[in-house]
């Protein structure tokens, strides 16, 4: 057996930068939400109008949204630029097409891979069907949806491209979808971290940090 393909440097670097920017986006997103923990549907919504969801969060009006917004947009820029570099490199090297884009059989076989497995054997030569579906959803669906709904809340951006917000049903709808997709990303993160922890934490972490993955039996 041969040694497993290492994660490419560009994958490892963009992974960790975006992990940090996602953490910052999450913390600052909650800080912003505390200033008005209610969600609406349509163009408008405020205290005194019916809400779609009242979130079980405290209402904090003592200026947490100022730094929250600044940190949110700074980390959003990092996330978008670094994510863009990852996608560009992945398209160029064929990594996205080869390793991420799910094939029809993945849908059937994904369930068999949800149980964590220790590294080793031919299975680890590529992402398994469950990984492919999850990573593809994050890269091609959830992050683009976050960027879209984020931009749809901007009064300057929607002056340039009104379609971004009108197609979603309004500015408050965009805010609500932004929150829902953020929840989906948090669920992914929880599953991702759990799978890493249960399938050989040290080997997996070493693989994503140094690029060196599990060695094949006999050479270790």
């Amino acid at each position, binding site marked *: 057996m041969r040694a497993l393909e290492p994660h490419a440097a560009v994958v490892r670097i963009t992974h960790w930068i975006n992990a940090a920017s996602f953490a910052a986006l999450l913390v600052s997103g909650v800080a912003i939400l505390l200033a008005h923990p*209610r969600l609406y549907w349509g*163009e408008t919504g*405020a205290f005194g109008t019916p809400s779609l969801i009242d979130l079980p969060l405290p209402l904090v009006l003592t*200026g947490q949204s100022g730094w929250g917004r*600044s940190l949110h947009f700074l980390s959003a820029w990092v996330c978008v630029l670094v994510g863009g570099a990852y996608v560009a490199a992945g398209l160029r090297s064929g990594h996205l097409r080869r390793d991420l884009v799910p094939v029809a059989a993945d849908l059937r076989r994904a369930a068999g891979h949800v149980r964590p497995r220790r590294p080793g054997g031919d299975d680890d030569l590529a992402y398994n069907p469950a990984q492919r579906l999850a990573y593809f959803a994050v890269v091609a669906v959830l992050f683009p949806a976050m960027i879209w709904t984020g931009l749809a*809340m901007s009064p*300057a*951006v929607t002056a340039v491209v009104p379609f971004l917000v009108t197609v979603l049903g309004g500015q408050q709808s965009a805010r609500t979808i932004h929150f829902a997709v953020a929840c989906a990303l948090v669920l992914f993160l929880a599953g991702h971290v759990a799978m890493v922890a249960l399938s050989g934490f040290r080997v997996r972490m070493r693989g994503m940090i140094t690029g060196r993955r599990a060695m094949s039996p006999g050479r270790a």
Partner: protein
Amino acid sequence: MISRRRLLTAGLTAAAGASGLAMAARLAARYGLVPPDHGGLYGAGETITYAAHRLLTLHQPLAREFDRSQISRVAPVNGGPPESDDYQRLLRRNFAEWRLEVDGLVARPSSFSLDELKRMPQRSHITHQACEEGWSFIAEWTGVPLSDILARAGLSPRAKYVVLYPFDDFWDSIDLADALHPQTLVTYGMNGRELPAGHGAPVRLRVTRQLGYKSVKYLSRLTAVETLADVGDGQGAGAVAYGYSWYAGI
């Protein structure tokens, strides 16, 4: 192992990157793409956002406008009108003695009474206004385009910003892209009535492509300037000290 060639390539790439950044910074400063609160922890984010938005809106697109049927029944306000004696006295007399001062880099420093503003050509729009907290409403605003007021005072070609002084502490400023934008109004009417005190009487600026806090209430003076560095603490707005961005188009 790092070969000499690789070291050289890496060094050249780093040098090219650094000089590219320096060039970008110089160009950004020259074309007015650097916000006054570009320093500090979040300055890079503020600058990229502001520069990107200004490049995207070079053609001065209008913010979305709505039908009369979409006007919100509820239009909340944050905080009440100023409690200062000056303001309360003017309010009791229905702003008969109030005047909007226009000074700084203008050929003819001027002042306008409420009646004088109301006799100038009027414009209305029904627009969406979002608070940075997250809530929003749609209302109809009526007033005079700020560009008309600046033209009457003879705005100097050297001016790059308009500083907005209200009766409370929330002084602010906007760049010329927003000051001269056709939807930027000095409003005295809201939803077909006089502007209510809580919404900023006697006049409130409406900046349609930014969040609500840039639509400064209770206006008393406008000052045209070339740079914001010598105004207040140099950060462009009183709210910056409390962590709020000078540019709020997002």
